[in-house]
């Protein structure tokens, strides 16, 4: 049974040829990301359609519950002066969650491409730096690297730069490992099934051994951990780390 484990397919290049960057690649990641964003937007429009004050419908109850959960998460972790962060964190969580789970529908998750997480991590890194500069001034931000001892400055700089790298790589590594292990399990079970049913002599054996019968059901049990649990956990952890880093950056000034 042959398997191919590869990166996201690039469907073509569009646009003009910029000197250093080249042309703009239209990859599978981008197209599935657009589909996920469209799906989330449609979901939000549907559940907030025709809202009332009294006698609310079930859709509105769902919308209100989601807003409550997001508020409790952000304000509980960061304090009430960061209530403007709720839409950002909720959008990040829903994008990450749906991107991880769209792999169950057969397409490749956009989060299996490091570019997606790198984009989110860079945005979060800019927000953390902005909070630090707002809390202590630009001079205070630079001097903060030399505390507690000026000798530790390179280590402080390194740990500061490793924050977005580790956030992105943690999320990417978990999702990619799910895809790779699922692919290997499917191939292994298909091979085992064809070997097992090939033992039946005659035409029945020939037909049965070309259908991967053992692929039904068994990979689903592993998919509970690799797709569902890992997808939800990594989205939650990315948002939890975002809130914690930003809250820390604001208070140490």
């Amino acid at each position, binding site marked *: 049974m042959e398997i191919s484990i590869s990166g996201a397919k690039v469907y073509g290049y569009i646009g003009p040829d910029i000197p250093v960057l080249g042309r703009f690649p239209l990859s599978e990641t981008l197209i599935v990301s657009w589909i996920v964003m469209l799906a989330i937007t449609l979901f939000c429009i549907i559940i907030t359609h025709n809202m009332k004050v009294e006698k609310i419908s079930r859709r509105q109850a769902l919308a209100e519950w989601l807003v409550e959960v997001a508020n409790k998460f952000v304000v509980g972790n960061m304090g009430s002066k960061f209530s403007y962060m709720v839409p950002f964190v909720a959008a990040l969580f829903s994008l990450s969650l749906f991107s991880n789970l769209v792999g169950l529908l057969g397409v490749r998750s956009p989060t299996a491409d490091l570019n997606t997480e790198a984009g989110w991590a860079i945005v979060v890194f800019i927000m953390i730096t902005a909070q630090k500069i707002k809390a202590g001034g630009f001079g205070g931000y630079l001097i903060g690297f030399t505390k507690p001892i000026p000798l530790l400055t390179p280590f402080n700089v390194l740990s500061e730069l490793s924050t977005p790298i*580790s956030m992105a790589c*943690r999320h990417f*590594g*978990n999702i*990619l490992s799910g895809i790779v292990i699922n692919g290997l399990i499917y191939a292994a079970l298909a091979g085992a099934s064809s070997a097992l049913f090939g033992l039946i002599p005659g035409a029945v054996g020939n037909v049965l051994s070309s259908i991967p019968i053992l692929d039904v059901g068994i990979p689903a049990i592993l998919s509970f951990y690799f797709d569902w649990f890992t997808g939800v956990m990594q989205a939650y952890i990315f948002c939890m780390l975002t809130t914690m880093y930003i809250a820390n950056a604001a208070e140490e000034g």
Partner: protein
Amino acid sequence: MDLLAKGIALAGCAIGAGLALIAGIGPGIGEGNAVAKALEAIGRQPECKSSVTSTMLLGCAVAETTGIYGFVTGLLLIFVAPGLFIDKIV
């Protein structure tokens, strides 16, 4: 590159991938410790089980990071690195 050089490079990739996955020891020990402490806490105070469990899972997922670094390195060495110097892999 001639055949011997390509063979050595492929062997290096394979050995490197095996060495990279030694990084799996760390999270195994660390998360085992974390679960042990969580079980102690639940044993002392059974009514805080759900809060302790969710905090423990959160901590385990953060501690898993270095293991994932090693795993991704191993994956890259097996699937991506040979494609860079071999024209066709049978």
